[in-house]
């Protein structure tokens, strides 16, 4: 059963997203809403990772070797300025999107393996990831014209 690999993928994606939210919060601290909400969302990611952890451990027992090229690198550090903020939010968006689709995949597997506890975690957390995507989209939509058309 390969579920352990996808649980590991999701766990690491949540940890990485938490870290990226924190880096963006610090880099763009002069945007108070970014600073505050990125910190808040980092904590949500922490909570997601924490809830996933027992399942990662549980399913890891007896799992086959991890396949090649499972993990991908979506974030390589923050940028500065108006367009830099936009681009950083776009990185977060792509990372949250990876989490979003991985929740879907893990949720499907939870149905398949009849794991009610795992399913409950997925149902609880995937909605919060969806809100992260929605917030990032909202903020980027508002920022884009000023950053791309107006600013010098």
């Amino acid at each position: 059963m390969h579920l352990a690999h996808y649980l590991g993928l999701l766990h690491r994606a949540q940890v990485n997203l938490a870290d990226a939210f924190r880096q963006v919060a610090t880099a763009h601290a002069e945007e108070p809403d970014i600073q505050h909400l990125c910190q808040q969302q980092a904590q949500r990611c922490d909570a997601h990772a924490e809830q996933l952890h027992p399942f990662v451990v549980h399913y890891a027992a007896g799992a086959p070797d991890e396949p090649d090229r499972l993990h991908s690198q979506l974030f390589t550090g923050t940028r500065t300025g108006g367009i830099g903020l936009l681009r950083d939010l776009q990185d977060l968006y792509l990372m949250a999107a990876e989490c979003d689709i991985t929740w879907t995949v893990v949720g499907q597997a939870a149905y398949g393996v009849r794991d009610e506890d795992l399913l409950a975690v997925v149902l609880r957390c995937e909605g919060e990831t969806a809100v992260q995507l929605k917030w990032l989209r909202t903020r980027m939509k508002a920022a884009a014209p000023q950053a791309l058309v107006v600013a010098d």
Partner: protein
Amino acid sequence: MVDRIADPWGERTPYGPGQEWPVRVDGYLADGRTEADVERWVQSASVLHSNGDALDIAVADGRIVGVRGRAVDRVNRGRVDPKDLYGWQANHSPDRLTRPLVRDGDRLVETDWDTAMGRVVARSKELLDGPGGWGHFGFHTSGQLFLEEYYTLGVIGKAGLGTPHMDGNTRLCTATAAAAMKASFGTDGQPGSYTDVDHCDAIALWGHNVAETQTVLWMRMLDRRSGPNPPAMLAVDPRATPVAREADLHLAVRNGTNMALLNGLLREIVQRGWYDSDYVEAHTVGFAELCRIVDGYPARRVADICDVPAADVERAAELLGTSQRLLSTVLQGFYQSNQATAAACAVNNLHLIRGMIGRPGAGIYQMNGQPTAQNTRETGADGDLPGLRNWDNTAHIEELARLWNVDVDTIPHWAPPTHAMQVFRYAEQGSIKLLWISATNPAVSLPELRRIRRILARPELFVVVQDLFLTETAELADVVLPAATWGEKTGTFTSVDRTVHLSDKAVDPPGEARADLDIFLDYARRMDFRDRDGQPLIRWSRPEEVFEAWKECSRGRPCDYTGITYEKLRGDSGIQWPCTDEHPDGTERLYTDGVFNTDPDYCETYGHDLSTGAEFTEPEYRAKEPRGRAFLHTVDYQPSPEVPDDEHPLLLTTGRTVYQFHTRTKTGRAPQLDQAAPDVWVEFNPADAARLGIAEGDLVGVSSARGAIQARARLCGIRPGVVFVPFHYGYFDQDPADRTPRAANELTITGWDPVSKQPIFKVAAVAVTKLADGRGVPSPAPTVGGSAPPADATCRRPSADRPPRPPA
């Protein structure tokens, strides 16, 4: 007559439930004049608070000589706030601006209108040239102009320049009221009526020191409290305000924890079966989710978070849950605090699950802080679109485009209008290059003033300020335009409970000062804004013509003014919108049939996630199938963005005194009001003061991570761990060469609610040190209101008869 400085609320006129509030006519004529000396009485209403009290201006020898309340009016039945009794004297202040000023190096020099407007227009045309030119313009307007002025400004911004960067000082006072009503009911629009005070059997005041912010509404409540069968009263406020002292139950919650309290109260009400299941079933969406979330807030947990006794939480729930006609009022203790929109929505939830809405006595006032704030929301001079339209609904934008005869894409609608704090951020970053500030004073009123001054002083930013006086903001301007004020121009404005009043011109403005409307129209003419057919975009010139144009914009929307005319507003009481051919006398209460404005084609927003401000899309909104039902939005409590630590162990909250308004631009120039509250102070609980070695009157330094101020200490009934500083005091009346830091906003946080974008003024962490001994001289804090000292303390009592201070 009662000394209305010593007793701001005057004599009681008790009345019972269902009775008409008795008339009591207040007035003040200066210089010993009597009514026989008055040549004309000119109809108006108050612009020094948000209650919308109707009054007449007394004129003699071409000057304003006093005011008198209008007995005929539904809002105040003749009563007048002390600020209105005396504040009009500022109109005659010798330092009124009478000529335009332009910057010449580090000085502002007098000039003529052609030169001043020529500079504004030349810079505007230069900036507008090229793609994205619209994005270089920002507007920061007020809660003190008239409807006609806001609507004109809105059209200039949205259809003339095509910029979304227009907001105002109302973002600080009223944005959460609007956001909460949109979220719960589908559109802005106050459900209740001031007459709900006449019928209610319980009043809950949520972070609302109404005794000092809207004195006439408080008189109405006090008159019910002193009559037969008085309403029960609950106050939620960290300070011992007059409201808290009058209330049967006072919850002095820890600042920033409103959401936890409301969740706990809702849990009790659900668990005790004090909700109206038929109403919930028929008229609301989201009850199961509400129950799921509030279940996590038993009274014990709420007591821990909010630092109030669990038994009091239960008693409060009982007071709310067993009332038959519950009235709630909400203001800055919620709107300017942590989780503002979510907590204000929770008050709406309380009324929705109890079916306490849309009938006499069962009402909600999501209050405003400023007199004409309502109109910025209606006309779209703040972060809204005219007629309470939805920026994300293309059909609504098409209506505006037809009305103004411009292309749909001229009107910015790719995102919501830019909120005030973001406008200043763009100015800080340099992409906004022209900032036009009208009738407000951000150099004292916005958070983190050192930053605001730095932005306004940027050489690259062209700042236009339109005001009566050389305010702290005007000092930093490139062009200063002298404006006429209340009593010197004609227009309408609307109270918290949707009552529209006319304010007629009584006297001419001083010197070359011009009505704000005339300034905006002059700009539009000089900029030569055109519609799609090459005709002038703005074709009106008089206030009444603007009002008629606005009526068309409001047609069919919740704030429908089509049944109102200037003529109809003259002589009689103000009229509550919606007022149409079908409802020619206006509409007292909204949602009387339990049908809300949540239809997807009609609503003002498709909604937000309340914890992040993430916007929902039209399909997502439609999927909720609102069908005229109201939304029960519920979220978990989250701690404030700033909490005390070792370095800054106290929590700062800011607010008002009854004697001053905004940054004292007017009230600081009225002798009786200035004398009643002449200087800043800082409030301490006696236990904190004892621990810090601070006595009444000591000079104290208050500092946060952003700045520091000095103020004299007042020991009073504020909750332990919290200090209060009034936000009114800036620097205009100090020697420019020797200014002592005293503005509360030197200390506050740049931060805002994720949905309403209202700045958070109630939760800054501060440190305090004693700077000098007061030697037994009490602080300048009034002994009336929230700053009242304990009964046994010796403090200077305010009085209207005390002679004014000699000029400095």
